[in-house]
């Protein structure tokens, strides 16, 4: 079944590739934005296949976690493929598509925390709280970035929505480092899960920090003098690839390690 699905997915991509080959623009050697979109697409597509195929190597209870990892990188790969074309065609930052990607993949990353701590007693309530917080964070961020009225009200608009968005981020940060997720991981009696959840929490703390920083680097933002707003796409692309693939690899390591333990017993 997995193989059929995988072959179907590859066939779809080949068909899409053939359709697009004729209209695809070449990437200029100094176009780092487009290049990192391309690199992100390739890396995340490869990671997606890896996680999907590796579902067969882990115990039944970890299959869902790996499927979610494959979905995260898979969804991102499709978006990156489109964003690269968009960027090449228009030269603009694909803010809308980036947020569509994030709004689908970030809640899924939060689902990973739930799946990892489910065995230690994580409830559906926790899952929904994390999904809500991540969606809140992204919707507020998008309003702040895309619906900026400009002029005198520009800064107050972006700061207001930026603060509201950051509340969501800080809630997730608190939950995974100090709150419910951290406590559940501690309760799990598994060193692998404890370490794994802690590694994912590091991704949220360090890896996700690029997004509020990027937000502050927008035109007129407080950090726009420190980082060129035009180069922020490059940083987003690198951070996205590291965060999503890294997240999946941590989950994969936990799944393999726990499955091997189960086999040994």
């Amino acid at each position, binding site marked *: 079944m997995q193989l059929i699905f995988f072959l179907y997915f590859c066939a779809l991509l080949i068909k899409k590739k053939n359709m697009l080959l004729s209209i695809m623009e070449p990437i200029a050697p100094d176009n780092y934005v487009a290049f990192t979109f391309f690199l992100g697409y390739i890396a995340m597509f490869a990671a997606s296949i890896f996680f999907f195929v590796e579902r067969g190597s882990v115990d039944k209870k970890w299959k869902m976690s790996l499927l979610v990892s494959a979905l995260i990188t898979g969804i991102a790969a499709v978006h990156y493929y489109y964003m690269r074309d968009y960027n090449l065609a228009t030269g603009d930052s694909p803010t809308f598509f980036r947020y569509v990607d994030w709004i689908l993949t970030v809640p899924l990353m939060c689902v990973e925390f739930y799946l990892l701590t489910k065995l230690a007693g994580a409830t559906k309530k926790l899952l929904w709280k994390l999904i809500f917080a991540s969606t809140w964070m992204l919707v507020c961020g998008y309003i702040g970035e895309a619906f900026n009225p400009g002029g005198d009200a520009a*800064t*107050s608009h*972006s*700061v207001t929505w*930026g*603060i509201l968005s*950051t509340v969501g981020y*800080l809630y997730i*940060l*608190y939950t995974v*480092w*100090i709150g419910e997720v951290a406590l559940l991981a501690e309760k799990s009696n598994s060193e692998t899960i404890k370490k794994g959840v*802690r590694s994912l*929490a*590091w991704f949220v*703390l*360090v890896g996700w920090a690029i997004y*509020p920083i990027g937000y*502050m680097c927008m035109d007129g*933002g*407080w*950090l726009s003098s*420190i980082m060129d707003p035009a180069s922020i796409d490059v940083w987003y692309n690198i951070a996205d690839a590291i965060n999503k693939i890294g997240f999946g690899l941590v989950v994969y390591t936990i799944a393999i390690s726990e499955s091997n333990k189960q086999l040994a017993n």
Partner: protein
Amino acid sequence: MNKLLFIYIVICYLIASVFTLENTITIQNQLLGSSILVIIFGIPHGAIDNILFLTESNLSKKVFYLLYFLSMLLYCFLWFISPLYSFIFFLFMSAYHFGESQLSNYNIEINFSKFIFLIWGVALISTLFLYNAEELSNLFNSYDDTSNFSIIFKYNVLDFLFYSSNFVIVLSLLYLKINKLITNEIFSTELFQIILLHITFFIFPVIISFTLYFVFLHSIKVLLQEYSYLEQKISGLNLMKFIKLLAPFTLLSLFFFIIFILISNIYNIDISLLLFLIISISVITLPHSISMTSFYDKINFK
């Protein structure tokens, strides 16, 4: 990441938002916010040195107070003889104290742990000074009696201290991690904290940067350590009782500070407020750091 570091991050985001909105925070507002936080958390964290030192100590109260105030007097005398050397001594002493408070709870069992404490603090202070060199140099130059302190920004001394101490502290952390003297978790947290401090000191003005570190990563941390130690020594200790323990010397410090301000307003005292602040903080810091070294020895020995 612990709760204090989380609070620190939240406050950094908040201040960043204020900066985005307002472009700046006036010096008056910075000083006001800083003073409130220092009065609530900074001064109290050193207000129970007597209790901490005398618990499980053979030294009598009289001798302790005598030595405590004698060391303060001696340091005042040193300030009188050589303000510049006293200032440099103050910076290194503070560096050791901050480093000790940062790393001592890991109970690192190596011969050169005290050297690592010093280097951690030197990295902290040199980073703060280097990123805010212009602001600090202007501040020192704005008073006659502090202008010679800006010598620390000359001859690349600060650059040397900044690069070498940061390099050595990262190297030391790596050494400790490789030799399994600290866990991977501690290593990552410490490294993250160093990077976070660099970012904070770089983007915020010096008063905000230092207050954030001093209050949230130093004073409150020490207060929590003190509370948890005394909880074992004093039966039925709760927050109210702890505040009552902190109150006398906190109020006394504030009383003397207000008295000085009043006197300096009435009489024309030949010392700037900045120098007075530096001297008073430094003379309190000397016996406080000695007491805290003894305190950390006690909790680590346990």
